[in-house]
């Protein structure tokens, strides 16, 4: 994802193919420091992201669980010596079994979780963007107390996600939470937030919106400040209304920033773990689980089903990849060059 940058980008394919060794050598001499600078990151990424990724994909084709992971089963006899035998039920390659079981709903609630995840992502990102854009527009005007508003509005960002999760879980407590107290104050019956799938999901969505708006607001505010003020002045002279200036100057000017933050926001929200995990804890009975938390529970709760968790992981990644490809294609059609 690059826009036009200052570097003069020479073509990376050299003219003469025959001069291979010297080309490599020249390339090395010219670029060794660049490679030296990126090397640590490349190593870290290779070892800790790509190796695990391929291993995860491989595991999704096996039936590895905590129970069958050992290659040998050792039994300590009465005399104290240890006898080891090959594990008869050792984990093995099972092909597409995991996928079939997950997609047909034999194990877990894949389709329900996917639905919940989609609703969760869509609502959260739409609200993040809408509210962030609204607040940024207001903050972008000259007015009194602007600095104070900005600091106050960014504040949720400074609170670690798990603390926010606890804070909102506390607010949505059925007996003594602030939410129910406020509802009773205006004469509405208290709600058992975590007893119903949708109200439970609502608590998590509210938490995540509260948490994510500052990022959008700051990013969009930054984007607005890069729009030359001459454009606004010219528009004013031409008699454009505030709304016309907003739709004809601000929104187009924000395109590059919004495209990036919407894509990132979507991916982050889709994979957002702590909010659901801590606020709803999947209540009631796992109905408010999203894909990521469902997969985590498969891997680390009960008998740890590592292969099943990896299967979910591959499915999540596929959904996101498909989404990004379509997103990029849609952008390219509208003339946005990445």
């Amino acid at each position, binding site marked *: 994802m690059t826009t036009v940058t200052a570097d003069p980008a020479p073509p990376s394919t050299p003219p003469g193919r025959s001069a291979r060794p010297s080309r490599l050598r020249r390339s090395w001499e010219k670029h060794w420091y660049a490679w030296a600078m990126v090397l640590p990151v490349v190593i870290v990424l290779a070892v800790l992201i790509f190796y695990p990724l391929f291993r995860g994909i491989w595991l999704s084709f096996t039936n590895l669980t905590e129970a069958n992971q050992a290659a040998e089963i050792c039994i300590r006899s009465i005399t104290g010596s240890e006898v080891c035998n090959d594990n008869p039920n050792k984990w093995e390659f099972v092909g597409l079994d995991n996928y079939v079981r997950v997609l047909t709903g034999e194990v877990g609630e894949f389709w329900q979780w996917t639905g919940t995840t989609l609703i969760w992502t869509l609502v959260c990102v739409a609200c993040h963007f809408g509210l962030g854009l609204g607040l940024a527009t207001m903050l972008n005007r000259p007015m009194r107390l602007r600095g104070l508003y900005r600091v*106050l509005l960014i504040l949720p960002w400074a609170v670690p996600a798990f603390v926010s999760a606890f*804070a909102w879980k506390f607010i949505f407590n059925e007996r003594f939470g602030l939410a129910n107290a406020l509802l009773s104050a205006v004469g509405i019956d208290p709600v058992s937030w975590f007893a119903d799938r949708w109200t439970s999901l609502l608590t998590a969505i509210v938490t995540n919106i509260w948490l994510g708006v500052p990022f959008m607001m700051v990013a969009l505010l930054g*984007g607005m400040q890069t729009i030359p003020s001459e454009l606004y002045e010219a528009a004013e002279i031409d008699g454009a209304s505030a709304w016309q200036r907003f739709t004809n100057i601000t929104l187009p000017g924000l395109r590059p920033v919004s495209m990036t933050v919407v894509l990132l926001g979507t991916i982050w929200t889709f994979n957002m773990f702590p909010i659901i995990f801590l606020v709803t804890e999947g209540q009631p009975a796992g109905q408010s689980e999203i894909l990521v938390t469902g997969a985590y529970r498969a891997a680390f709760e009960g008998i740890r089903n590592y292969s099943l968790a990896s299967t979910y992981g591959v499915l999540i990644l596929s959904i996101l990849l498909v989404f990004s490809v379509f997103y990029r294609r849609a952008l390219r059609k509208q003339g946005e060059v990445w």
Partner: protein
Amino acid sequence: MARAPGRSRRGPARSALLHGTLILASLIAIGPIVWVLLSSLKPGYAIQSSELTLFRDTTLANYGYVLTETNFPRWFLNSVIVAAFTMTIGIFLSATTGYAVSRFNFPGRRPLMMVFLVTQMFPVAILIVPIYTIMARLGLINTMPALIIAYLTIAVPFCAWMLKGYFDSIPTSLDEAAALDGCGPFATFWRVVLPLARPAVAVTAFYTFLTAWGEVAYASAFIQTDDKFTLAYGLQQFVPQFNPQWEYLTAAAVLVTVPAGLVFFFAQKHLVSGLTAGGTKG
């Protein structure tokens, strides 16, 4: 610039509407934080009453209990260590990488940029099991390096990507001038470009710190004994399914937010400028 301030052209009604909306939004933004703070000053029975009060039997006892009777100080220290190491190493790694990607057109540059973006998509669910196995094989389960390394994989790609955008906005003529003065690429980076990129570095530091300070999934999976917990996992101990101790949780939550707030305070001046460049030029 002789531009009339917008304030003078805004009628009183519109002005009231604008400020009213912003005040409401600010209240929503700080409300939960203030509510937790107020609650942490109440004794347990006052928190768990259905009656809504701002102050009731104000006391610091919850803080005293959390700080002296629980493992909280230990968890706090663990989190500080993990976050500090992640932040320091993370900034160093992402700054050099971001610089190289921004300045040098070396083979492998574009794929690397793509990789940074794609890694944002990798769900914790697919990586966590294999990383857990790797850590187990290296004997790192239940140690802090396991967490530091895991958090670096989350933070570095995004930060490198963001810093790259910022470096792009620093004129290359500065690099060329430094090169004429006899600086090598490393010296140019260290002495000329990095100081100029301070806003973006502040944002990066902020982001890495918060990532490490608030991460839950890896902390829950890799750490097993009470004395090694970080705050993100430790705090869950206060709210078990039955008989949650909200008075201690709220006090602990306030104590956890303070350092994050401090880091934030120092970074917030730079947030807008730092993020803008990263966002637009990424």
